């Protein structure tokens, strides 16, 4: 099929003469108004699409990476809550030797209530070996804000900044933590709880015949540092204690224990293999409780988080796609006008032997070139804006706050400075993740829509007959 000549004619008619030295040519080089507008239209409509694509991918990756490196790990193996650091050691050794595993720790989690002299709040305590904090993945996202990051002994605790704020405390202050401790049936009243810790577990112990009997255990901690993972949904209630404190405090009923494992390539498809390797490594060491179903990968653990992100992203893309649709229809209408403008040229070409198919190809080609140029423009602009999105947001914030201050001043009210990326709800800094495959898909869609929009005008062009020419002369 001959496409050389239609494209040559289309490109030249659309874009005008190539520039040469020597001004004075009457015709303007470059696309005529309507088609230039169509190029611009497609370009502009692609900007929000590409921006949303890149920024949402960035936020999703930023959030999931944070979760993976600081909380959920890449793979988890649930363990019974009575497991001790000592018991765990042989499992951890075995895991570290497993293919694909880069590191492993035992973590104990427990919930309770923290009380300071000024406030109280829920608290989610985590006890992990110190080497966790030195892992490169963890260190990347867990930032030390104040004091020390690693608690030692039974009395030291490191709080997340959000929790410290809620409790109105800072490094060096004391807090009390209430956890439930299980009083086994029959032990009845009197002081002394079930745990061998010796921490103050006195209180109104309840004597009765009920199946579950819990006493509040009070533990006193000194805050030795505050940390932040940069995302409040993740670290809002965090507090870190040492493994030794965890063993005594974080027990049934409010605690859970598990092995946290990090791998070399968490995003690859090899996670399934690692699951099997982990099972193989651990089962000989814990024959009494280990089952393969206890091993879970991070996509399984954070499935709902991931899915809700995916839905939000799809919806946003769909909405931004409406702009592209409008721009494509716009292109079709501009092309129709272009056809009418060039009726004479069409008649001349016909008299020179152009077939219907050639004429159609010329204008379909013009539509494709327009769409292609617009796509190039829009994708480049979108990528550029997304690359600099953090700077852009900072600039926008500055502008909005100035305007807001101005309006508030006029109204006689204090102005509230607005933070666009409030750390309470978003990442403070959006990482830029360009998935070129997806961008290419968007570009392809844009070009396909342009082609579709060109079909009708191109067909109308082929209907223009040579009689135009005859009538004129």
């Amino acid at each position: 099929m001959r496409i050389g000549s239609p494209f040559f004619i289309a490109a030249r008619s659309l874009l005008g003469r190539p520039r040469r030295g020597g001004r004075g040519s009457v015709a303007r080089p470059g696309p005529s108004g309507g088609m230039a507008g169509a190029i611009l239209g497609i370009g502009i409509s692609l900007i929000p699409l590409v921006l949303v694509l890149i920024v949402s991918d960035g936020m999703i990756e930023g959030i999931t990476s944070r979760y993976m490196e600081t909380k959920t790990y890449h793979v988890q193996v649930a363990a019974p809550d009575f497991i001790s650091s000592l018991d765990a050691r042989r499992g951890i050794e075995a895991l570290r030797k497993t293919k694909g595993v880069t590191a492993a720790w035992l973590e104990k989690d427990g919930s309770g209530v923290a009380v300071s002299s000024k406030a109280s709040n829920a608290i989610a305590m985590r006890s992990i070996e110190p080497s966790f904090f030195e892992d490169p993945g963890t260190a990347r996202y867990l930032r030390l804000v104040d004091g020390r990051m690693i608690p030692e002994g039974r009395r030291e605790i490191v709080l997340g900044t959000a929790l410290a704020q809620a409790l109105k405390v800072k490094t060096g202050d004391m807090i009390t933590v209430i956890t439930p401790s299980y009083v086994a049936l029959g032990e009845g009243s009197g002081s002394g709880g079930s745990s061998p810790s010796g921490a103050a577990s006195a209180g109104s112990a309840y004597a009765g015949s009920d199946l579950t009997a819990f006493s509040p255990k009070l533990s006193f901690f000194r805050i030795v540092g505050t940390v932040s993972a940069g995302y409040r949904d993740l670290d809002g209630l965090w507090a870190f204690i040492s493994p030794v404190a965890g063993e005594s405090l974080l027990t049934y009923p409010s605690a859970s224990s598990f092995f946290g494992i990090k791998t070399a390539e968490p995003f690859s498809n090899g996670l399934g293999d690692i699951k099997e390797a982990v099972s193989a490594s651990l089962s000989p060491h814990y024959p009494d409780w280990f089952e393969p179903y206890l091993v879970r990968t991070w996509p399984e653990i954070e499935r709902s988080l991931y899915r809700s992100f995916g839905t939000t992203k799809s919806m946003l893309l769909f909405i931004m796609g409406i702009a592209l649709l409008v721009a494509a229809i716009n292109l079709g209408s501009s092309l129709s006008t272009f056809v009418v403008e060039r009726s004479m040229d069409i008649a001349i070409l016909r008299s020179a032997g152009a077939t219907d198919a050639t004429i159609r190809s010329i204008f379909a080609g013009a539509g494709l070139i327009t769409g292609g140029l617009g796509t190039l423009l829009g994708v480049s602009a979108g990528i550029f804006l997304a690359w600099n999105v953090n700077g852009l947001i900072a600039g926008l914030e500055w502008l909005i706050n100035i305007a807001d201050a101005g309006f508030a001043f006029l109204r006689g009210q204090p102005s509230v400075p607005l933070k666009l990326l409030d750390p309470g709800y978003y990442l403070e800094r959006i990482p830029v993740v360009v998935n070129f495959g997806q961008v290419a898909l968007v570009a392809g869609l844009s070009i396909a829509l342009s082609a579709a929009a060109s079909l009708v005008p191109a067909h109308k062009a082929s209907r223009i007959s040579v009689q135009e020419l005859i009538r004129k002369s």
Partner: protein
Amino acid sequence: MSDDMQGAAIRCAGLVKNFESQAETLRVLQGIDLELPPASSCSIMGASGSGKSTLLSIIGALERFDAGEVTVGGYKLHELPEKGLPAFRSGVVGFVFQFHYLLKDFTALENVALPAYMAGAPRAEAWARAETLLAKVGMAGRKDHYPSELSGGERQRAAIARALVNNPRVILADEPTGNLDAANAAAIRELIFGLPSLTGAAVILATHDRGMAESAGYQFQLAEGRLCPL
């Protein structure tokens, strides 16, 4: 579909063309008979509106006709389906109009090459052919200029070169010098009437200029829908 090239390049028999309008039916051509051998030239004179343009259009398959037979370069236009028209137009006939009708976005060279390029010739070959033809019409030095940069005479020469690029058997010229001054007109006249010996094509020229008409081998007058030899 072209059989004998030794026979007439153009043959019309009983050609009838009517223009229908709401008020009346205009019988423009009422039974035209014409025979023209290859490599000959013929002029058709007539007042404006007499139908000479129409006759040329029909011979060039730019217009359909209502009755009669027309055979051009072996193609029987009375039997040619719509689909076959482009091939006929690009391969058999070359047009030169009163207005040059060059595409303004393309240089003289590109304008001349386009019909060949569109007909399927490789780009290099089409461009080469165009260059040769422009040289033959005396435009070698001006081939890279755009129509807006050429004089009236130069534009018409380029138009003639374009008409020749696909080696047509028949060249149809409709008032080719109508817009030119005397000097240019003379040059063009010489060029056009030199074409039969230069290319072997048959030339039909429609004009109301007597001087122009008298340079042709065969001369006709078109009046009241009928063709009369002069």
